[in-house]
Every structure is written in structure tokens, then in C-alpha cells.
């Protein structure tokens, strides 16, 4: 059997089928959980916009609340406008909560707070967003719908217990470039679908700058790793240096701790997060 050649076409999907599959997943989960709908963070980016659109198509816009959670340091009117474009098109409810005041309290209340450490500070923002989402979900008897994609998740490019904290993650098995194509398939404006991604932890942060690689290349490397290809094969297929592929692979493997339950020493007969292998129910 000839091996798949790593070109952008390997990431092609039947987007109608993908839409159907994800919508069924969301609908069934919400129904089984007997929840009244979903709450999600609506950043103005493509992952949350696509997740919002899919949620709305699954359970109806009136059962989808998009929380816009700006704060003064990273505030960008364009993001708010883009979030509104999606909200209006897919008829979902929105609410804006300015997190600036609560973030200010955190900064003041942490004795060792260091404003120059932008990563630690930025993670507070991601985790504060999570607190807002879960407050609304608890209050409204809804579930939190996460927007993580496969590229970020494999790379560990997210805040532990922050943006990845959710009850369901409908697009987590789609690479970023696939999310963009799905977004266009769903009718999200192309300009929004192709806009550079940012976790908005500090001003002018972009995912591709931080990761040091374009998503078009990253996704193909990750796809190769997913398919058990060697780093050499991937580098040859993409005509890039093996060291680039190895760097991605190292980062992917090093971040498994962010994708799992916390680890415990094995003491008992069956252990949470280890060999307690129970069905996941939604009741």
C-alpha cells in the first residue's frame, strides 16, 4: 500500500458530514444531560465562532449563550464586532462581562504577583474566563461548550484548567485549518475564518508567532504524527528540516499532562484517572 502523501488535501473532509456529526454529538449530549443549552466563550476568533455556530445549529440559538469576556489590556473592538457577526448570523444570545475589575483584584490579592511575567498573568485571564462560563452554566442549568481545536490541544497550546476546561469540546478532533474550512462551509465570513488566532493573554499575541510555525505546516506535521509516521518521513514529505518536525513532536508528547486527569500514585485497587474505567454518563 502506498503511503499517504502529506499535502493539504489529506486534511480535506466532507464538511456537510462533519457538521452533521458534530451537531448530533452536541444535541445528544445536551439532551442526555437534561441541560437547557450551552454556554460558551465568544472571543471573536474562529474556534469559538465555529463552536457557537455548530451549537446554535444543534440546539437552537435561543439555547446558546455566548459570553464575551474582554478586559482592558487585550481589549479589541474588532474581536467584539466579529463575535457579534457570528451571534447575529446564528441567532444566539450574548452577554458582555468586562473582566478588568476582577482581574485587577487578583493581581492585587496575590502577594507574589509579578506583572512582568505575562504568561502567569495571562493564565489568570484564561482561568477567570472559565469561572465566568461555569457560573453562567451552573446558574442557567447549561453545559460549558469548549472551543479547543486539535492543533492547539496536541501542542498543549492552552491554559491548563483555563480555556480547555469544558463539559464538551465539539471541534477538538479538527485541526485549525479544518476548523477554518468548516467555518466557511457554515457561512461564517471568510475574513473572520482566516483571521490570525490569538489566545488574548496579552496584547498583540498571535498563535502562529508563538508556536513559531504556520498552521498549514503544523497541521500536516500533526496529521503525520497522528498517523504514526516517523519524523523523517514527515520532514521528507513536507520538504522541511527534520528538526522542525522533532520540535513539534517533542512539544506534543511533553504536554500530555495537560490533556489528562492529574496523576496519582497507585495505591488502591482501582485508581481515579488510571484504572477506574467507568462509562461517562451525562445524568
Amino acid at each position, binding site marked *: 500500500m502506498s503511503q499517504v502523501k502529506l499535502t493539504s488535501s489529506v486534511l480535506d473532509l466532507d464538511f456537510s458530514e462533519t457538521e*452533521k*456529526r458534530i451537531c*448530533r*454529538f452536541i444535541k*445528544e*449530549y445536551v439532551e442526555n444531560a437534561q441541560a437547557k443549552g450551552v454556554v460558551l466563550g465568544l472571543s471573536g476568533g474562529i474556534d469559538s465562532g465555529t463552536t457557537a455556530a455548530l451549537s446554535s445549529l444543534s440546539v437552537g440559538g435561543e439555547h446558546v449563550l455566548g459570553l464575551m469576556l474582554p478586559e482592558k489590556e487585550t481589549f479589541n473592538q474588532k474581536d467584539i464586532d466579529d463575535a457579534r457577526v457570528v451571534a447575529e448570523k446564528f441567532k444566539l444570545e450574548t452577554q458582555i462581562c468586562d473582566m478588568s475589575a476582577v482581574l485587577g483584584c487578583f493581581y492585587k490579592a496575590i502577594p507574589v504577583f509579578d506583572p512582568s511575567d505575562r504568561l502567569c498573568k495571562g493564565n489568570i485571564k484564561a482561568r477567570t474566563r472559565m469561572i465566568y462560563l461555569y457560573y453562567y452554566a451552573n446558574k442557567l442549568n447549561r453545559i460549558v461548550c469548549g472551543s479547543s481545536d486539535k492543533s492547539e490541544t496536541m501542542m498543549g497550546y492552552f491554559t491548563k484548567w483555563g480555556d480547555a476546561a469544558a463539559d464538551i469540546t465539539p471541534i477538538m478532533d479538527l485541526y485549525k485549518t479544518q476548523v477554518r474550512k468548516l467555518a466557511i462551509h457554515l457561512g461564517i465570513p471568510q475574513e473572520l475564518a482566516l483571521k490570525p488566532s490569538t489566545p488574548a493573554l496579552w496584547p498583540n499575541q498571535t498563535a502562529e508567532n508563538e508556536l513559531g510555525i504556520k498552521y498549514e505546516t503544523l497541521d500536516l506535521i500533526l496529521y503525520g504524527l497522528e498517523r504514526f509516521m516517523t519524523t523523517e518521513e514527515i520532514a521528507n514529505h513536507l520538504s522541511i528540516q527534520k528538526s522542525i518536525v522533532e520540535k513539534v513532536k517533542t512539544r506534543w508528547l511533553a504536554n500530555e499532562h495537560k490533556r489528562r486527569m492529574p496523576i496519582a500514585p497507585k495505591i488502591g485497587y482501582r485508581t481515579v484517572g488510571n484504572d477506574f*474505567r*467507568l*462509562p461517562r*454518563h451525562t445524568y
Partner: protein
Amino acid sequence: MKDKIKLALAQISSKRENKNENLQKIEKLTFKAKEQAADLVIFPELSLTGYVVRDQIYELAETIPGPTVEKVEALAKKTGMHIIFGMPELSEKTQATVFNAAVLVGPQGLIGKYRKMYPPTHSVFEEKRYFRLGYQPAAFQTDLGNIGLCICYDVFFPEVLRLTRLKGAQLIVCISASPAVRRSYFEILTAARALENTAFLAYVNLAGVEDGLQFWGGSRLVSPTGDVLAKAKYDEEDFITCEVDYSDLRAAETFIPTLRDLRPELFDKLKEYSESL
């Protein structure tokens, strides 16, 4: 024995760990099958318990015969129907040895059972963690013809269905819990297994979502020449009836004489080579 029988393919979504609710569904659809003049109603793999039940399998497994089979026997007797369904079977000789089983019940009671020979353990599947392998092919002479049983991933192994056919099965029933990413494989293999064995093949898959796994439905009856005679909806619960006309077997066997052309000496080679893979 009847020349023609009518099948009902009951492509259900099971409620995980809820045998009572699933039994109610089995009962309701058996009555529906009866109303539609079907002779045999077929439910998917592990339809009694749901597929993704993980460690709870030990609480859910039952012996065959056992309490659930007795209830299904009563249902078959009451309706005059033959019923095939899937359940985790607890070995009678041990406390926690479980098989992934298909059960065939008729109006006179339990006819037979089949224990899955190839429980998959790769990708999202972890069946060997829980299930002991079966060793025996299953084909039972019934009032509805000779019915063979197999389960899901077995269909990837031509020898399982070959054995079932050679044991006498004219209608091979494959119950399944196949997730959507594997749909194309099953569509090819169900047709191939029917064709290479010149037997009818009824495939009945789960529908619905269990723990993120989306079962693709698509249950079907395949003719002995590999044609899809009836097909249920993809992904959703569905209930269809279709007819098996055993007189088609003769024409198929003469046109595609794979059974006549079997070469037993090759099977020794198969054994030899597979042992040294």
C-alpha cells in the same frame, strides 16, 4: 422449513447500563416486527446494555440462560417470533469471565448463542480487556432455515464467516456496534462476506452516541451475490423489514461456486503461515 422468511432489522440506540429500558425497547419492537409479519427480529451487539460500559460490564453480565434470556424467551413464546440480540455473557463456571455474545431465541426457547471470536482491542476499542475470546462458530438449524451468528469485527476475518457457512448457515447474522469512522470498511466487508460465501448476510448496527462514539447504523440485508437488498438509515434509530428468499441460494451457488471450489489443503498453509507471522 420456510422457503422465504421476513426479517426485521431493529437498529436501536441502547441506554447504557439500563437493561430494563433496553428490554422494554426489545419487547416493543418485537411486537412491531410481529405486526409487520416478520419471522425474525434482530437487535445490535450488546444492545441489552449499551456498548461503552467499561468496568460496569461485571455488574451487567449474565449467564445464558439467565434472567434476561428467560424474559426474551417469554417474549418469543408470546409473539411466536425468533429474536437475536447482543449481551455480555457471564461464564457459568467463573465469577467474572465475560464473553461478548449474540443470542438466538425462538418460540420454543433458547436456540443458541455465539461468543465473539475477535473482540477488537485497538483504536477506541478495548474489548479484550473485558471479554474472553469465543472459539466456536455458530450455525443453528431452525424453522427459519440455518442461521449463523457473528459479531462486528469478526467480519474482518473471512475465516469466521467461512466456518459459519461451512457449518451450515444460509443466513449469517452479524450484529454490530460500529462507530462512524469505520463505515466504509463494513459496507465493503459485509458485501464481500456474503458474496464469497454465497449466503445471505443480515447486518444490524447500533445507532446513537455513546461516550463520543457515534454508531453509524446503516443496517442491511445483503444477498448471496453481494447486493444490498435493504438498508436502514445512517446514524439514526431505524426499523426496516426485508425478505430472505432461500431459493436465491441455488442460483448464487451455481453462478459463483466458491463452496464447490474450496481447497481444504490451503487452510493448512493458512494455519502454518499465520502461526509464524
